[in-house]
């Protein structure tokens, strides 16, 4: 089996397991790429994942950098398509289903029942990020001010992101 096909299949499998996004499949991704296929060592895997987190955009793009590392631009394409396509097809099908069922009285309340899980997991990722970023009084102060700013105002969060960066540069 060609390397590109193997990459496509490995990430395609991960795509369908990734309930909750990229962080949910991190252990399985590590097992497949490092232990099963031996495409990279432990340290490289961690560095590439950290790199993807430092960039903007969904964390799932870690797959793309790993594909690049394994087989260059073609590897990047194979990993990205493998990771995105199966999940996107499923989302497409479900969107069609909810559209067909849109007259059903139970659909809206059923969907609203999923909202607390989605919002709760956004809050949880914020708390986990705060735990990692809160290294001293200044970073905790930035976290607190930024929480209040985004919650209580409708100004662009860019202000606090830039302010946080500037304070970090001056004082951290």
């Amino acid at each position, binding site marked *: 089996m060609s390397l590109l096909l193997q990459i496509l299949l490995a990430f395609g499998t991960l795509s369908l397991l990734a309930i909750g996004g990229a962080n949910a499949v991190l252990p399985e991704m590590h097992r497949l790429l490092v232990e099963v296929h031996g495409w990279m060592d432990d340290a490289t895997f961690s560095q590439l994942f950290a790199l993807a987190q430092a960039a903007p955009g969904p964390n799932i793009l870690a797959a793309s950098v790993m594909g690049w590392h394994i087989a260059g631009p073609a590897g990047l394409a194979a990993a*990205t398509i493998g990771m995105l396509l199966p999940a996107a097809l499923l989302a497409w099908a479900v969107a069609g289903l909810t559209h067909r069922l849109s007259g059903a009285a139970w659909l809206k*309340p059923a969907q609203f*029942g*999923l*909202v607390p899980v*989605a919002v709760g997991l956004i809050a*949880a990722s*914020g708390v986990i990020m*705060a735990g990692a970023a809160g290294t001293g009084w200044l970073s905790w102060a930035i976290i607190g001010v930024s929480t209040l700013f985004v919650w209580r105002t409708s100004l662009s969060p860019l202000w606090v992101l830039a302010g*946080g960066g500037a304070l970090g540069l001056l004082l951290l």
Partner: protein
Amino acid sequence: MSETITPGKAALFLGYAKIGLLGFGGVAAWARRVIVEERRWLSERDYAEVLGLGQILPGPNVGNAAVMIGRRFHGLSGALLATAGLYAGPLAILIALSLFYDRYGTTPGVAPFMQGVAAAAAGMVIGTAIKMGEKLRPPPELLAVGLLAVAGAAVLRLPLPVVVVTLAPLGVWLSLRRAWKAGAR
């Protein structure tokens, strides 16, 4: 609730490109900001419902929501444009970063700047969740489900699929029960 605005194809692509490029550390916060507050494509509740479905499906919830929202407005081309907008910018940045990785990591000033941004991004994500909770006003039993999700994922550090598979059916059941009771009265 204010009026919503149906985006054209170019607006759909550009809106999602903004979400992708600004989505440092928390793409979910920026997606809600752009879709609900800035461009008013969907109401708070409509957006939350799409995101809820995106959450129980595999893949990133914001990515799944992009497919569903793109389809709702412009069919297949909408889904493709929203998805391309979301991923193209970050992918280009990521490629550049991996090419210049060694130089980028050791430039003086980058690390403390990024530490400060990371702290602000954490606050941005928490603030977004509080704001959504406040505007959606869930009944007490659904609020409890949301708090359980926070506790399970952030405190107990349970695997996300475990949290979703246990709490999603519970939330749906509680929400349907409330709707049924309201309808029976």
